[in-house]
């Protein structure tokens, strides 16, 4: 579904990515691990269009996206979340979710006055979907709270729920478990797994929490110093010498 080929990116003298490549099959959960500074988030930024690579290709469902803009890529169904949680704190939880769907006619300025009925209907539909999503994420009682009032873990759940509202084909999750307490972490895990099994959603996840990512992933890529140094099934990667070196030897 997603094919990343030989991505290179330098910032001034620093090579953040040095020929990174990976493939993600549809319906799978793929994990990316690696020490700090390995280039994982940079890779995400490039895949999702927030940063342009110096060279390399990215194909999503067969189409080249390495030069596309971030909002265009999101529209093709590739949605990312952020390392530092970006719940929109000045909007309510419900509003955060209702922002997400893609084809809202009400977002076109002239429609606001020309198509009020259509917008009303779409908003109703959106609202119902959002409420049911909130229920399944156990955030329903917080629906009218400003998102700024939520705990760290709740914000992460909110972000995931919001991303799902956008009906993605594939989700890029950047450290979704960081700062989340164990209980909420398990709920998050359950949600990801059920999205994969019930909806066939594909995931590419960066994570530092080893137990979580090992349990969750079908396949793992290990990044270090801008390159993929190992890849394979979780238990294979766990025992790989090169991987242990990378983590223990320090960057």
């Amino acid at each position, binding site marked *: 579904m997603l094919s990343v080929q030989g991505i290179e990116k330098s910032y001034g003298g620093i090579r953040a990515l040095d020929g990174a490549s990976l493939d993600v099959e549809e319906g799978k959960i793929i994990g990316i691990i690696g020490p700090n500074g390995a280039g994982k988030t940079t890779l995400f930024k490039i895949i999702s269009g927030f940063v342009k690579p110096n060279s390399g290709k990215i194909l999503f469902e067969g189409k080249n996206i390495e030069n596309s803009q971030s909002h265009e890529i999101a529209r093709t169904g590739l949605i990312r979340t*952020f390392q530092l949680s970006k719940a929109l704190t000045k*909007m309510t939880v419900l509003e955060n979710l209702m922002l997400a769907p893609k084809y809202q006619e009400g*977002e076109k300025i002239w429609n606001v006055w020309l198509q009020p009925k259509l917008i009303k209907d779409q908003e109703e539909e959106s609202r119902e979907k959002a409420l049911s999503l909130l229920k399944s994420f156990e955030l329903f009682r917080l629906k009218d709270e400003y998102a700024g009032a939520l705990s760290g873990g709740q914000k992460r759940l909110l972000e995931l729920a919001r991303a799902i509202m956008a009906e993605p084909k594939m989700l890029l999750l950047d450290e979704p478990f960081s700062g989340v307490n164990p209980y909420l972490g398990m709920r998050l895990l359950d949600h990801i797994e059920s999205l994969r099994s019930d909806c066939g959603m594909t995931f590419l996840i960066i994570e530092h929490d080893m137990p979580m990512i090992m349990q969750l992933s079908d396949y793992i890529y290990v990044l270090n110093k801008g390159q993929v140094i190992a890849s394979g099934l979780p238990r294979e990667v766990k025992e790989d010498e090169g991987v242990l070196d990378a983590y223990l030897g320090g960057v």
Partner: protein
Amino acid sequence: MIEYIVSVLLIAIIYAIFSLGLNLEWGLTGLINFGHVAFLAIGAYTTVILNLRGVPLIPSMLVAVALAGLCGALLGLPTLKLREDYLAIVTIGFSEIVRLILLNEEWLTRGPLGMHGYSRPLADFVSVDYNYFLLIVVLTCLIVCYFMLERLVKSPWGRVIKSIREDEDVASSLGKNVFSYKIQSLVLGSAIAGLSGSLLAFYMRYINPMNFVPIETFYAWIIVVLGGSGNNRGTILGAIILWIFFSGTRFIQGDLPITPSQAGALRIMFIGLALIILMMFKPEGILGRKEELLLEQ
């Protein structure tokens, strides 16, 4: 006395419309536009120039509003991607260049002499003091703008704009074309400013470049900030308060041992101070909501 009140009400409402445009750009979308007065000028001068060349008023006004909006887009296209403080500097520069053009292209604008002698809506048909009629026109424009903007704020479009104000990356990651939305906001805000420019021209019966100096932009800013950035009702309230302040102080200044120019300066000193104190201690203004403030780093 009544005529005086009508006159003050007129100018207050014109400023309210002008500031509503800024409220859309800054309060709702988070764009620092320090050049808002440029569109007031474009609206006023376009209306007047066209009308003096024989174009009837309604088409003149429509062209003025459209041109103001278009200039907003032209300003925004190269500059909206700049960081907020750079945008502030650039927009002031833009409004000053517009003013320089008005001052120097005398073949078009009669330069510092200004322009007068243009007609006003239905002036020939109104038998009472024209200002009463103009008040109705201006009030209607305010009501239309207000409801139009309120509709926008509560719509999905408004939701996207608010998300852009807080965090562009989130909006982008959900497929929203941030740049396009910012331009839309700027165009609409500028068009509204253009409309207020036309109305200003009718009110004053004579316009010249001195009416379009940067401080006018900052009057709009204090109106918006005082009322509560992002709150349209607050903006209207802010405009009324500002003009009560302006006209009220005119009454007492005769009693103080100061010259008119000192009185004028004192007024603006007060406004500058008010801006500082507001931003330091009550940045949400009168009607704004603290939770919706976005002024921290």
